[in-house]
């Protein structure tokens, strides 16, 4: 079985935020929330680098470990999804996530959190695949339709890779070797406990 992972090639990312926009559009992510973000380190200095980050779909996901209602589950493809019907908006997953992924719409005027929203690897949620109900809660289910996440598919410089970990790892390793450097698999050690 494939093990779905994201990998961002910092030498290729040009901080265009195309992935963020494509994600927001395809999943109709609510106002104020972003399932993906691009971080630029050393911005404006020689050697600045950008990295696109979303849910890494960790092997031993900390969000799932701390969730009081146990609303997270991992699909057969290794994608970490959650059931919004069980989410109570406590925010513990946000405290436990090393990548700051979980997002919360503001539920009341007093600032209490609504139900958590995060990247689904474009795999929808626990509702029936491709249903209107699933789309309203979780956004697109491209995986069920045999497609890859829209962020990586959109990426103009092919910096953001999504797919089976072994496959994208091979592609990235080849790139790194042609550039005569070590492959830096951003976040992989934390998320999956291993590099390529």
């Amino acid at each position, binding site marked *: 079985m494939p093990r779905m992972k994201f990998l961002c090639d910092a030498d290729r990312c040009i901080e265009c935020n195309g992935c963020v926009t494509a994600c927001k559009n395809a999943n109709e992510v609510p106002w104020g929330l972003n399932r993906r973000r*691009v971080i630029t*380190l050393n911005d404006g200095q020689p*050697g600045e680098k950008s990295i696109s980050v979303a849910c890494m779909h960790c092997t031993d996901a900390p969000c799932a470990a701390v969730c*009081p209602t146990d*609303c997270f589950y991992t699909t057969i493809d290794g994608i970490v999804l959650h*059931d919004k019907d*069980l989410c109570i908006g406590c925010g513990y997953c*946000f405290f436990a996530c090393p*990548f700051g992924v979980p997002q919360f719409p503001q539920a009341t005027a007093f600032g209490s959190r609504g139900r958590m929203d995060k990247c689904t690897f474009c795999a929808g949620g626990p509702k029936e695949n491709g249903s209107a109900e699933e789309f309203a809660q979780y956004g697109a289910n491209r995986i069920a339709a045999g497609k890859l996440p829209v962020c990586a598919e959109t990426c103009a410089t092919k910096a953001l890779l999504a797919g089976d970990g072994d496959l994208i790892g091979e592609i990235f390793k080849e790139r790194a070797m042609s550039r005569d450097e070590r492959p830096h698999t951003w976040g992989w050690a934390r998320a999956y406990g291993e590099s390529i």
Partner: protein
Amino acid sequence: MQSKAKHKSARRRLRLIGWMTAFVVVAAMVIPLTGYVYVAMAQTDDSVAQSEPAQAAPTTNPSSDLWRQARQAQEGVTAVRGPGANVFMIDSAETFRQVRMGPVSTYLPIFLGFMVLAMVGLHFYTGGGAKPGNPSGKRVPAWTLFDRILHWYVAVLFLILAITGLSLLFGRAVLIPILGPEGFAAWARASKFVHDWGGVLFVPGVLVMAVAWLHHNKPSMVDVRWLLFGGAFGKHLPAGRYNGGQKIWFLVNVLAGIVVCVTGVLLLLPNIFENRELFQVSLIIHAVVAILWLGVSFAHIYMATIGAPGSVDITTKGHVSSEWAQLHRPLWYEEIKDQEFDPKAGASPPRKA
């Protein structure tokens, strides 16, 4: 004669060879050392210094440096707004997970269980406490209506917050198998709502209590003696209006109350205090101190009900039997025995001065 002269010149040649050998050996050692002189002079010479490389080659790989920055939570620039959005990854998240799912989830339930067992053990050790009853029918006034309302306001909220708080921390392990995921999610959502708003009501209660009862809880040597010589273990030692154990319970309420209320209010306002590290630490402190507080409250609840029969009248009726006061609070009884009254004779508690 000739042989003598010959002998002399041979000796001179030998001496010459000796001196020359010595000179060569010394020169061979000294001349190379002049290199130091050359280097020392070259270093003061600007033209030579400038001909050297301007800067050393980097000692670390620049791409490794960048990865190190990302891993060590260096702040970058991002178009997305949100707490910590400009940071790639933080270590404190994993620490939070390890602490919450490790010691907090392991030792705190053990502590609560220990406190329950300790109360059961105490009950059997002391034989359930003396039961003075009220044969004389006489009573002494203890608490005003304000004291009683304040006590039950804080106490009821404390228990509600404890039940809802424990549901959020241990419900996944204990309640999901009973209620099912959907059933527990509904309970957890209600718990969160009640815990959030109950906390808002709880904070002023704790504050008023801390101020209103402070003057009753000044420690004295009587309390120290009461504590040291086993007042908590069934011995009836001299005590004033409140004994040493009760004064400690008051202190626990004030200190734990401050910590739990401050961290709780902070956690209620995620959009004001936008700092993940602060929230991680607050949540752990909130849970640990609140559960320790709850464990100590078991002792209070036991002592005020079955541990010292008759005590509960103070918080319900506001007055207590004279026998109870003489047994448990001899010093206080001496102070107020002139206010003694007999409800059977139609008397009502005298108005408090």
